[in-house]
């Protein structure tokens, strides 16, 4: 079985694929309905940021194993303007457009590990991991 999925994010419809792909991986790993919903929601938020703020990019989703724990790692990357002030971007309610400003901070709360890495020369990469608790 191929444990890694690649989803290009270029238009609104692609977010449906993001959600579907995360759902599939999460259920194959054994996530319950609550954890699955949390991860799908985080994925849609990050994917929409990739689309809207990052001007398009892609998501890679993989099943990860550490010691005996299983989880899912979502890796979003775009070549947009990047996030100049991460603290500000992670502030609840901050938006540079007309969003709710809760996507980034909310996604961070919905997963176990959350890393934002600037991409050179432009863009951001966001890695979010959710572990399945046994």
């Amino acid at each position, binding site marked *: 079985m191929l444990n890694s*999925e*690649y989803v290009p994010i270029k238009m609104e419809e692609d977010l*449906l694929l993001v959600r579907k792909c995360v759902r599939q991986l999460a259920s194959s790993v054994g996530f319950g309905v609550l954890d699955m919903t949390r991860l799908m929601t985080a994925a849609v938020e990050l994917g929409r940021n990739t689309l809207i703020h990052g001007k398009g990019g892609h998501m890679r989703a993989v099943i990860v194993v550490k010691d005996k724990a299983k989880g899912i790692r979502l890796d979003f990357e775009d070549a947009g303007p990047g996030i100049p002030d991460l603290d500000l971007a992670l502030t609840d309610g901050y938006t540079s457009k007309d969003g709710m400003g809760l996507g980034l*901070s909310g996604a961070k*709360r919905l997963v176990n590990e959350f890393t934002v890495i600037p991409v050179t020369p432009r863009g951001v990469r966001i890695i979010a991991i959710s572990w399945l608790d046994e």
Partner: protein
Amino acid sequence: MPEPLDQVLHLIFDEYQEQLLEKWVESQLHSDGFRSYLVQEDELREQCSSFVTLFVNCFSKKNHPDMTSDAWAPMAALLTDIAKRRTNQGFTPSETATFVFSLKRPLFHLIKEQSQADAKVTERLWEISLVLDTLGLFTTEVYLATREEVITRQREEMFELSCPVVQLWDGVLGLPIIGTLDSKRTQLVMESLLETLSSTQSEITIIDITGVPVVDTLTAQHLIRTVSAAQLMGARCIISGIRPQIAQTMVHLGVSLGDVVTKSTMAAAIKYAFEFQGLEVNPINK
């Protein structure tokens, strides 16, 4: 000229298969526009190796590639697998087809080296074939883009059909939302809701989101917008069908739906609406 060329091909297949494979893999890895992050090198190498082996095998049995024949069946299976994988990995149709076409350059090169054919003629033939490949690939891309447009249009039409506003009772409208509440759809939902509100003079709207898979911040924004529009027309809104996992996720996300009345099920919402209208449902006394 066919005989000597066949001999050259056999020579290449017998003696230079390794070299052909190596050159092919290298040329793909280093070609312009090859998106190395889409596929791992060992996967590519394995696909190329299987392809060359099968190509030599099938081609020796039957020169004409009839993909439905037994002779070419293994090749058809391999290409099906590769094409499916590449679709999922995010390659474009052209990039996928280029996998096969790109074998031509190293193969032609070997043929040129091993045969006495006129170098200028073979070079020219190569160039012409490259032009035709590019044109052929272009038509495939256009074909697929057109199909995608058709699919998108059909999807939109389906959307329109799937946002019915139903009258549940005198003065009570129901708006079951199934699927994703994106911007386009919110627009449609809002228009038909406002129209029905005014034509039926209804005072209560129940928006049911049992069929919405996730409520992210944009969905929440759209819901709030729809509710405010209905309130501006003097109608009261109830949101029903917020499943427990959705409610919990919304809390962590930090979104709230404002002061809208929410009910866990459509039935509870209908009951609330009746109470609001001063109605009560009782069994018939026989």
